[in-house]
């Protein structure tokens, strides 16, 4: 079946702009995660949804970052007033229940100029 998909695959924006990154999880998966990966590092957790609600948003770096999952399926990660330090690969993952294997999408490479 289809895996986790993310759009766009690449996003280049200017400092101060607003961006939205989209994640389509595996159908039927209740849990959805966002991670951010900087060059040479492992992924770092941002936020976790169980259904429509954010069960854990402790990884969001500041209030410029926000994520939604209004119908419990597709999720959008929103970044306001982007900064050059936001440049990274943003990864989305989903799992069936939230305590089992997480399946990752291909990521969105965000570049802030």
């Amino acid at each position, binding site marked *: 079946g289809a895996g986790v998909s993310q759009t766009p695959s690449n996003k280049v924006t200017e400092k101060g702009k607003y961006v939205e990154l989209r994640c389509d999880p595996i159908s039927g998966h209740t849990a959805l995660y966002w991670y951010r990966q900087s060059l040479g590092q492992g992924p770092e957790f941002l936020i*976790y949804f169980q259904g429509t609600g954010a069960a854990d948003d402790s990884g969001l770096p500041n209030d410029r970052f926000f994520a939604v999952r209004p119908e419990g399926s597709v999720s959008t990660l929103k970044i306001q007033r982007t900064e050059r330090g936001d440049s990274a690969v943003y990864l989305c993952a989903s799992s069936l229940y939230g305590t089992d294997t997480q399946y*990752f999408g291909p990521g969105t490479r965000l570049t802030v100029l």
Partner: protein
Amino acid sequence: SQQGEEDPQALSIQEGENATMNCSYKTSINNLQWYRQNSGRGLVHLILIRSNEREKHSGRLRVTLDTSKKSSSLLITASRAADTASYFCATDAPSGKLIFGQGTELSVKP
């Protein structure tokens, strides 16, 4: 912050040799997962080992877990050039989020 630490950070071997990567972590876990990543993009799940398991096999992969030492190892036997990638261990936090190490960069030379 990252909990896990992989060792070594980089490993270069010849095709046919075995590759061993180690992972240490700091807090109690429910399970530990190993992922592979090519070219800095999506992660591919390799294997999940639960805290009550000591060893698990999947094809050419063998994973061990020692909860008393808070460590795990990933062994790839009879390596191939196509195994060249970065390998990450990830431990789960109570909420289900994964905490990754910095990874081991494996290079398998033909």
